């Protein structure tokens, strides 16, 4: 019993210590964002790798998610003779929930893992030590620009996901299942308010922060052994997914 308690105590201490390190890492990265000189070229470079390079996977997933929603929504709404609400249901679900969350998942899988692997490789090949030895702060050089890029790219990708998803559901609902085009868009127009767009935007910005923060942290603290990079990559993806869902619940409950 005592050994179990001591083990629990050790885990708790390790967990709190890790959390503390993660928050200090984030604070340090955010402070370096505002310290001159600004690394604009690095921010643009990372917007390309987070945003442009994830575009195809976000469009594909948005399109098919919208198509599935068109199918599922139609068959559920038909039971209540409410097919005309399809546009409204699809738009609200995508804008408030699925758009931000699924595009965050796509970016985590496509770019977050690569981010952790790249920084992790830099750690084990002493490239991060090389930056320190050149009196260049690696957090300012490697982490802060990625966080800013995540904050900018994530809402844009989410907006694209939402639009493509709405069009995918339109193709199925209107083109295939016979919902009227007018009711699809008018339902959407009547039910979607600015707050829905704002909530989705707020979620996507915070997910951008969460993904870049966790993936950079895991890469930065890669252990110097053969499995170090693969473990950092896996942990960064899993933790990002979990944190996105936890934060999504928290934000939804506050902003509902």
């Amino acid at each position, binding site marked *: 019993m005592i050994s179990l308690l001591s083990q629990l105590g050790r885990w708790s201490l390790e967990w709190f210590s890790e959390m503390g390190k993660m928050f200090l890492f984030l604070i340090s990265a955010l402070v370096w964002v505002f310290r001159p000189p600004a690394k604009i070229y690095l921010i643009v470079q990372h917007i390309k790798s987070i945003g442009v390079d994830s575009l195809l996977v976000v469009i594909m997933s948005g399109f098919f998610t919208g198509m599935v929603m068109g199918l599922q929504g139609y068959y559920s709404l038909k039971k209540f003779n409410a097919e005309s609400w399809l546009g409204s249901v699809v738009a609200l679900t995508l804008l408030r929930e699925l758009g931000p969350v699924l595009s965050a998942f796509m970016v985590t899988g496509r770019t977050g893992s690569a981010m952790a692997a790249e920084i992790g490789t830099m750690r084990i*090949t002493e490239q991060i*030590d*090389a930056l320190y*030895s*050149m009196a*260049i702060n690696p957090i300012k050089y490697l982490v802060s620009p990625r966080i800013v890029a995540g904050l900018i790219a994530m809402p844009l990708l989410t907006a694209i996901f939402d639009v493509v998803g709405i069009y995918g559901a339109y193709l199925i609902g209107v083109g295939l299942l016979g919902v009227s085009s007018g009711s699809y868009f008018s339902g959407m127009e009547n039910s979607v308010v600015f707050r829905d767009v704002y909530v989705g935007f707020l979620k996507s910005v915070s997910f951008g922060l969460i993904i870049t923060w966790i993936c950079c942290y895991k890469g930065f603290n890669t252990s110097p052994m053969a499995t170090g990079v693969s473990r950092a990559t896996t942990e960064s993806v899993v933790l990002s997914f979990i944190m996105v869902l936890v934060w999504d619940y928290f934000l939804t409950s506050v902003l509902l």
Partner: protein
Amino acid sequence: MIQIVKLHKSFAGHEVLKGVNLNIETGKITTIIGGSGCGKTVLLKHLNALLLPDHGQVIVDGVEISNLGQKNLNKIRHRFGVLFQGAALLDSMTIYDNVAFPLREKTGMDEGAIRKKVEERIYQVGLEGMGYKFPAEVSGGMKKRAGLARALIMDPEIVLFDEPTTGLDPLLGKSIHELIVKMHATFGFTGVIVSHDIPEVFTISDFVAMLSNGVIEEIGPTEEFLASHNPVVQQFIKGETQGPIRVL
């Protein structure tokens, strides 16, 4: 002069350095030898505060660097150049950009002046015409040369070499040693080399120190070190398996 005083360092409860005392003479090349995993690289990384001691001091020209704030530490680090074991070139950049990197980040030099200086260093290390290549496209020896060019680009007073010939064939290893001697003659830096490359490394060293069991077992000018009667030193430099050093 760099003074290391009673330096202790542990990792996860395992004490690697157990009170290292070592003086490194200005303008000379000092080589630290010792068995694999004995803590040579750990010791080297304390010299420019890449690692901080648990106890003890590292004093660079009278300044104790272990407790410095970031600004003052950066000033000290500007005086150092480091050639890492795997060269540690940033693999997203070409060799030219790697060498130019410290100048672009830490000086206000215009691109024309940077180009002139970078091309000069690239020429000095024998990589003329290779600047456009990425680290992944060149051999291990070329990476080390590029790493040395980057280490020397800020005209450092002290250059640290972490196993500069590891992973190279004997000819390439010798060429790197010759390059270190040539650069030392040109720039007059204080050199600290960590190496296994025995006996070749003795030909370029003014002083040799041996790290064993977490302390400096022996240090002296190269000739005196080689003539030492210390059985630990003699066993190690002769590469004998029988003697006071336990070989697994």
